[in-house]
């Protein structure tokens, strides 16, 4: 079994993997952009710095939008939101999914039945439409958007964790732990969790990408927080001018594409690094 705690070995496997390197480079750039956005563009992404409809690679690297705002500034500040949404939403999803899936898988019986019925209830709601409804009701603010993404996305992870836990819980060493008188919590955290962690890491890394796409989709539909510049918002706002100014939608669209692609590649690299069968 691969051991995530042995960070060096996992990291080394990712760094020696081509798609892993590509993803780390892209993500590195995006993270740096997010961190240094206020240094690069101290006026913020909403400041109208030039004439509207200026094409890219002129006075402004990525051109300006319909109001004369610098698209590059929007990309930099949008990176912060995308990463924030991706990470926070995934954290909530992983927490909810692991706790519910873990308890259901470990205890079985009525606990399992109850929790899986609740999980199924969330699974029957079409995810994106569910998120739209939640944001429409609660109002478009960033915490609501993150919460909505988490609420509609945790159920599949809970089922995955439950299956993994169920597989592990019947192994002899768990029975030995029970015989030794270990508490349930201790068995779950110390014995079972490390065994399902690789699954959670891989699924979770893909969740980050999904969450970013969800946020972009909501912003595109005008359900994002109007006080925050995000990539999806930029695509949605530029859409009406797509025939006159391609760059307003293309550039933030590419930003979303590369970020999501990089995260997916990283997820694949994690999968290969953590999966014992992929050893060559």
């Amino acid at each position: 079994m691969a051991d995530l705690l042995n960070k060096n070995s996992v990291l080394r496997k990712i760094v020696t993997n081509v798609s892993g390197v590509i993803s780390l480079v892209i993500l590195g750039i995006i993270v740096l952009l997010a961190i240094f956005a206020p240094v690069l563009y101290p006026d913020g992404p909403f400041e109208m710095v030039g004439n509207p409809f200026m094409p890219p690679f002129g006075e402004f690297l990525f051109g300006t939008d319909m109001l004369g705002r610098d698209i590059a500034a929007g990309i930099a500040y949008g990176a912060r939101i995308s990463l924030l949404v991706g990470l926070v939403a995934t954290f909530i999803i992983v927490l909810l999914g692991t706790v519910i899936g873990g308890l259901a898988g470990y205890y079985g019986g009525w606990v399992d039945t109850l929790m899986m019925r609740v999980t199924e209830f969330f699974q029957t709601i079409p995810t994106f439409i569910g998120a739209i409804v939640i944001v429409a009701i609660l109002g478009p603010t960033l915490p609501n958007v993150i919460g909505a993404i988490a609420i509609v996305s945790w159920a599949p992870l809970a089922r995955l964790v439950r299956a993994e836990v169920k597989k592990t819980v019947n192994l002899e060493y768990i029975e030995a732990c029970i015989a030794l008188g270990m508490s349930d919590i201790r068995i779950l955290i110390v014995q079972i969790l490390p065994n399902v962690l690789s699954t959670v890491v891989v699924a979770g890394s893909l969740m980050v990408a999904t969450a970013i796409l969800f946020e972009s989709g909501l912003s595109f539909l005008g359900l994002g927080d109007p006080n925050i510049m995000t990539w999806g918002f930029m695509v949605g706002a530029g859409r009406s001018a797509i025939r006159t100014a391609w760059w307003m939608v293309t550039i933030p669209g590419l930003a979303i594409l590369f970020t999501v692609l990089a995260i997916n590649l990283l997820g694949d690299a994690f999968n290969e690094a953590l999966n014992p069968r992929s050893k060559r």
Partner: protein
Amino acid sequence: MFTMRRRALCKAVVASLASAAMLALPVSAEPKRGGTVVITSTPEPPILTNALSSAPVTNEVATKIFDGLLEYDMDLNPLPSLATSWEVSDDGKTVTFNLRDDVTWHDGEPFTSADVQFSLMEVVKSHHPRGNSNLGPLESIDTPDDHTAVFHLEHPYVPLMRALSSLEAPIIPRHIYEGTDFRNNPAVNDPIGTGPFKFVEWEKGNYIRLERNDDYWRDGMPYLDGIIFRFIADAATRAAGIESGEIDIATFGAINPVEMRRLETLPDISITPGGYEGITPMMLLELNNKRAPFDDKRVRQAVAYAIDRQFLTDRIWYGFGTPAVGPISSALEGSGAFTDEGVIDFTVEDRLDIARNLLDEAGYTPDENGVRMQIVHDVGPFGEDWRRMGEYIKQALSKVGIQVELRNRDYPTFVRKVHNEYDFDMTSSWYIGMADPTLGVQRNTWSETINPKVPYGNASRYDNPETDALWEAAQTEADPEKRNEIFHDLQRQLVEDSPLVWLMEMNLVAVNNDRVHNMITSPLGIRDGLYDMWVSE
């Protein structure tokens, strides 16, 4: 040699131009019968009878089916329609209309003065959203014979004569509606009128088809065989329809302003100016006058100074408007109601400094981050252009130290919070000023129109006895000159007080294919009967 050639060339050019002009003139001046015009508008109307609704697209469809007593020229002077002539008594309290005797309803029944009496007194006055402002002082209508209607007014009411169009006061058939529940009468969505076009069918979610009324009372008109209103959900598809020639006319709002500017550059497509002089739409910010910080006149003025109206007109609305001076649109210049004399000019060079000084005076000094106050701006839920305007306003106000949080609300919540509960700081909105300030502008600042049950009234709850007295004087003043003086005073006082911030006079123009002629021949433009519209191939 060279000069000769050039001269010859010039001659040739002149000759060809002249012949082109000669060819072109008769063609464009001589209307041609036949053809169908396809109009796209959005959203699909809730009902098809505008006596019961003021929904914009209901008006666009119904004004082809129904007639009014009057029509208007571009200066908003009345012209005959169902009424051939009229006479106002010396005291201004009686108006006698002589009606046409050759008009029949689309179902063949004759049109009589009883229809006028029924439509205006029983239906429009009480059921049309603007019925009470249009016809309020109208106490009764006498019908001495089938073709005479005598209006009795409580007091002289000049605006009445500007409110009898098919848009505001359509005449509907008494024989179909009398004694029924008007709103549930099947004729509401299967309308019978006297207008140039007859209703044929409405395929919900798709189109409404109207065909030529062969018995229309204007001889030889309408020129068109029919009009089709198409409803397409996506703005880009509507634009593509115009571009491909599948759609002839797109009303304002059906296509994004930026796309309108692109379509306009295409060879077969134009934007015909005008067509909104009779409704004078105005865009504005509503400020909550009963709540800090906008309970202070200086803060309200500071907001008015801080916004660059020219930028807003050019950059957000792509030039489809004129920077506003005050509550009354400059489109009413023809009738003399508009003035900018003695009205505060918010577009002066040092406007930002003035705004900062006003805020200092009001006691809102900047903190270490330069922030004087925080407010919430509820963006009018009318589409993405409005959201973009909200983003601009946020930036513009931040320049004078007002930090704005934007909030997008869905339409029902917006109406409830702003117009029913008055729970807002600042909103963006627009109103139809109509052809007379008493009809459309008054309701935003007259204290009598503060009513949480009726949305789109005086939502800022501005309550000033002086301006109230002026509005009330304008209602009963019979002399047009004196009335205009009252309106000039109102503009000066209201702009000084700035209970609202008037941003832009909206130019609600339509995009049209060049095969459509006589696009705009009245101050209602595309919202009029279109009996004189024709198409060339």
